[in-house]
């Protein structure tokens, strides 16, 4: 059991150690020793910048991501339940999904300026498509027998939506939400690199422009840690929300053998 916890950490630790050793007495301007980078980390991020830059970034990400989830699931259920609507909108949605989301930053800047609204809008407009399209797929793939059963029992609209449609599509929705999360982090950073007065992305670019190399590296590490922490949080929520599904899959698989 302990081994199972420790083993995944071995490779990252080895990589960090290799980085440490390779740069230990590096005099290369661009590759400062890892010890220098870690030394500047607390000064750089925990003396005021955390509330001034990191928190605003995360709040914008959270707001945009949650709004995209609500919108995506809502629209996805509507589109997924109606065959003509799906056929009508499928090419349009495919097109919007194929547009790389960062390209929308200059467009949304026209409409919403460069304030918080623009950044939240950018995050919504990038995170929406994976959630929406996966929800459509999930609703379409619902078990016909379950659907008919719900109809036979005359389940009400509301409870059918909650117990049948949303629950049945939730594994797919979760897959879309996971994709959307990594897109959301990318857009959080990109929108701040474009135009901002605070935020992690903005700060890192400032460091790069002023050639504060160890600080810049510490920013890269911070972004990596944010990414890892958010994906761990997502996994915790997902495994809690989908515990019925993983259990079902496991029992099905064991039943086959």
């Amino acid at each position, binding site marked *: 059991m302990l081994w199972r916890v420790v*083993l*995944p*950490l*071995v*490779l*990252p630790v080895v*990589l960090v150690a290799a980085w440490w050793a390779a740069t230990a007495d590096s005099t290369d301007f*661009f590759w400062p020793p890892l010890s220098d980078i870690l030394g500047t980390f607390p000064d750089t991020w925990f003396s005021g910048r955390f509330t001034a830059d990191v928190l605003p970034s995360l709040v914008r990400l959270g707001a945009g991501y949650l709004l995209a989830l609500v919108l995506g699931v809502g629209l996805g259920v509507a589109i997924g339940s109606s065959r*003509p609507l799906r*056929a*009508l*909108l*499928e*090419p*349009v949605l*495919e*097109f*919007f*999904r*194929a*547009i*790389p*989301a*960062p*390209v*929308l*930053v*200059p*467009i949304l*800047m*026209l*409409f919403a300026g460069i304030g918080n609204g623009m950044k939240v809008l950018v995050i919504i407009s990038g995170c929406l498509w994976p959630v929406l399209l996966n929800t459509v797929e999930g609703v379409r793939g619902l078990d016909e027998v379950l659907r008919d059963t719900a109809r036979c029992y005359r389940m009400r609209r509301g409870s059918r939506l909650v117990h049948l449609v949303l629950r049945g599509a939730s594994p797919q929705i979760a897959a879309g939400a996971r994709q959307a999360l*990594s897109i959301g*982090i*990318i857009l959080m*950073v*990109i929108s701040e*690199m*474009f135009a901002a007065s605070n935020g992690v*992305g903005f700060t*890192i*670019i400032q*460091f*790069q422009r002023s050639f504060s*190399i160890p600080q*810049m*590296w510490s*920013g*890269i590490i911070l*972004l*990596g840690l*944010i*990414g*890892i922490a*958010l*994906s761990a949080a997502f996994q915790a929520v997902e495994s809690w929300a989908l515990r019925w599904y993983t259990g079902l899959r496991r029992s099905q698989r064991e039943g086959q053998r």
Partner: protein
Amino acid sequence: MTAAAPLGRRRSLPAWALGLAGLAALMAVVEIAPRAGLVNERFLPPFSRMISSLADQAGTSGFWGALLETLRGWALGLAIAMAAGVALGLVIGAVPLLRSATAGAIEFLRPIPSVALIPLAVLLYGTQMRATLLLVVYASFWQVLVQVLYGVRDVDPVARETARSYRFRPLTRVRTVLWPTALPYVMTGFRLGAAVALILEITGELVIGSPGLGRQIAVAQTSGAVAAMYALVIVVGVMGVAVNTAARATERRVLRWHPSVRGEVPA
């Protein structure tokens, strides 16, 4: 949903006709909304003006040069990521100790966002094409590697034991046991990687300013050429659709022997 339903309803249009109608409706909305004053024309020019701007640009060599740069960066980055991902994946898959050590570690390292590397890429390579290439390779490499690792984990134990009983040499084992099992996963990685590579290619050009369509968009934005900017965004979107379609077609072609593809053909 058998005989009863269609009788009462009038015959519905085929799906592709509805899809075309949807696209036409989108174009119509984009044409009419600014003309009717629903949105400011400075923010959203009518669709016809975007198209005429696109036609203007299609006559210049700068546009085609940028398009080629983007395609070249995308293809090169994807090729490097595929080669590295597949090679590393197969090595890890062939060595049990490496396999168990990397199983969780990669899930741990993968969420590190690719854009974190932008400042580093700029410092190392400035605004050359290589700066963007670094991002493209990094982002699509993970997509490929993770899929290859799923693939090598999926090898049938009986096939593996059989190969061992017959004393297949390591290379033969990779070619006859590991590769055919992993190939569907490799193709999934290819499809995902192709899409991600295009996103990062455009993003890199947009943010870093390396040559390509992304930089053209940034230039159009700063010079206030709104219609040109929309035209380029449409081009990029069409490119994305084309990449997705082509990747899916390649996947089906390479895997035409595989049951998952053969099974889809209606008998």
